[in-house]
């Protein structure tokens, strides 16, 4: 059975990774032998300078999902490279490093830092975090998306993946802009902008007022976006959006995704990424599928 997939020059032994910002403290809680089974690890987004994140409360439960407004709390690129990257490299599976610059130049500086650090399989450009108080996200503007991807692509020694926002009229336009700028892949989708109001206090529950919705609540919309984008672009798609089990991941693969990322499910079932991987293999065995490529984009209607 072949379940390996490629994005640009990077090869992954299987199509399952974790969504950025949902997987941490690897050494403390995980059995590393099991983590090694995943196709790739995608740590939380790194910015050029350290960020302390948004004021609490940062999360709230919603029907079949959650809102978060963490605000990219992270130690900054230098801190990450010094304190987190060595342990992540040691795990020995491909790393997809998520980076976020507040300007084009910051994206370039981040790329140079990870070029120098080495040991990375791909860069994922977070063009779509909804929690940083920006009026317009890069991923809401095809020209800006094109510009940032092109700038990073020019200097990156790694394949470049653009992570896009679902908060757009037509995500296929943005995906197309990323492809035309030379992206090796796109990640679909980041969280949906959303809010919950406490009616007793007449105040938004989140400290940041608005947040991003994730979990099973967004899955059908994310599946549709992957399906629509896959028809318009040729580069691979990493799909995420409420994948809780293998069947959810298979929906995305059938819709046209090459890889899947398990995100919010990690918070409920820490075994979810492995369950998803096992479930995909079981589905292939049951349906006598020899290569994962036979599933990707195999929608019959």
């Amino acid at each position: 059975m072949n379940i390996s997939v490629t994005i640009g020059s990077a090869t992954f032994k299987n199509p399952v990774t974790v969504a950025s910002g949902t997987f941490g403290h690897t050494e403390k809680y995980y059995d590393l032998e099991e983590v090694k089974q995943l196709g790739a690890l995608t740590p939380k987004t790194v910015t050029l300078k350290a960020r302390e994140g948004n004021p609490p409360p940062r999360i709230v439960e919603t029907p079949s999902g959650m809102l978060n407004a963490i605000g990219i709390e992270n130690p900054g690129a230098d801190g990450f490279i010094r304190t987190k990257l060595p342990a992540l490299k040691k795990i020995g599976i491909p790393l997809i490093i998520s980076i976020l610059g507040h300007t084009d130049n910051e994206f370039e500086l981040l790329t140079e830092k990870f070029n120098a650090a080495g040991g990375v399989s791909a860069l994922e450009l977070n063009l779509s975090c909804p929690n940083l108080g920006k009026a317009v996200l890069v991923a809401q503007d095809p020209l800006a998306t094109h510009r940032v991807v092109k700038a990073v692509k020019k200097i990156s020694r790694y394949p470049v993946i653009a992570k896009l926002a679902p908060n757009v009229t037509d995500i296929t336009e943005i995906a197309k802009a990323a492809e035309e700028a030379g992206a090796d892949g796109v990640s679909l989708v980041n969280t949906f902008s959303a809010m919950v109001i406490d009616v007793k206090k007449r105040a938004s529950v989140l400290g940041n007022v608005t947040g991003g919705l994730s979990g099973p609540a967004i899955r059908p919309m994310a599946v549709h976006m992957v399906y629509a984008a896959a028809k318009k672009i040729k580069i691979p798609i990493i799909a995420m959006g409420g994948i809780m089990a293998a069947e959810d991941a298979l929906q995305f693969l059938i819709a046209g995704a090459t890889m899947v990322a398990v995100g919010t499910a990690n918070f409920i079932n820490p075994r979810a990424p492995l369950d998803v991987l096992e479930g995909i293999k079981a589905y292939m065995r049951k349906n006598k599928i020899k290569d994962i490529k036979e599933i990707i984009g195999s929608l019959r209607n």
Partner: protein
Amino acid sequence: MSEIDQSMRKIQGIYKVASNEKLCPKFYRLCIDAQPIAKKVLPGQFIHIRTKDGFEPFFRRPFSVYRAKKHVEVFYEVVGPGTKIMSHMAKGDDIDVLGPLGTPFTFPPKGTKQVVMVAGGIGIAPFLMLSDVLCRERATALRGAELILLYGGRTRGHVYPMKEFKENGCQVHVATDDGSVGTKGRVSELFPKIHADRKTTFLYTCGPAPMMASVQAFAKKHGLHGEAACEEVMACALGACLGCSIKTTKGYKTVCCDGPVFDLHEVIFNH
């Protein structure tokens, strides 16, 4: 009872409910047959519970461990959909538990002569296990230090019988908002019971933020040291999502991994 075979996490297990009972009009106690957790857990640590498959409610729920003897015990109040489902669990039901998680209370420093636990409402939860350990060490490491529990509740039905604390040798003082039991007023009415000596008094507190803020202010005034067990809505409880961060004098800290037990003077309660 079995730990999930070759669990991805070293800490996840599916266990059986041993019992689940209503202790008083407001509070319940759930006992879980979870020996691996019972053996490891320290006072102040917590477990993260999922009561059933499916995604309503969506998050797991974190609970301080109330006691860990034969079973792992959780003391809880029904406040929302998660605890409502929990209140209907019965002996033999499966329960999915992560734990033990978080930082425990530290042992009172050498020279402590008075250990004071200040609890409000369901904030009593981590203190029975703490008092179990303190009681065990009282004659030896604690050199006979006094154990005091100051407990504040809204009304009679919110006051859990304090028998176990008394059995552990704690002096128990209660305040209720309506005066139906003990002193009328907030738990701060009981602060005069504290000897308040900077070298020999050590405080632990857990409860609503305004109550813990009052303990912090009292401690500051008298130069006392102590620890606070904090609470925040949690998703992963494993330090991954950074959702449960609270403000501290050292920046944002996660309740799940950096806490739930913090230095009393480090927490900024008025957010």
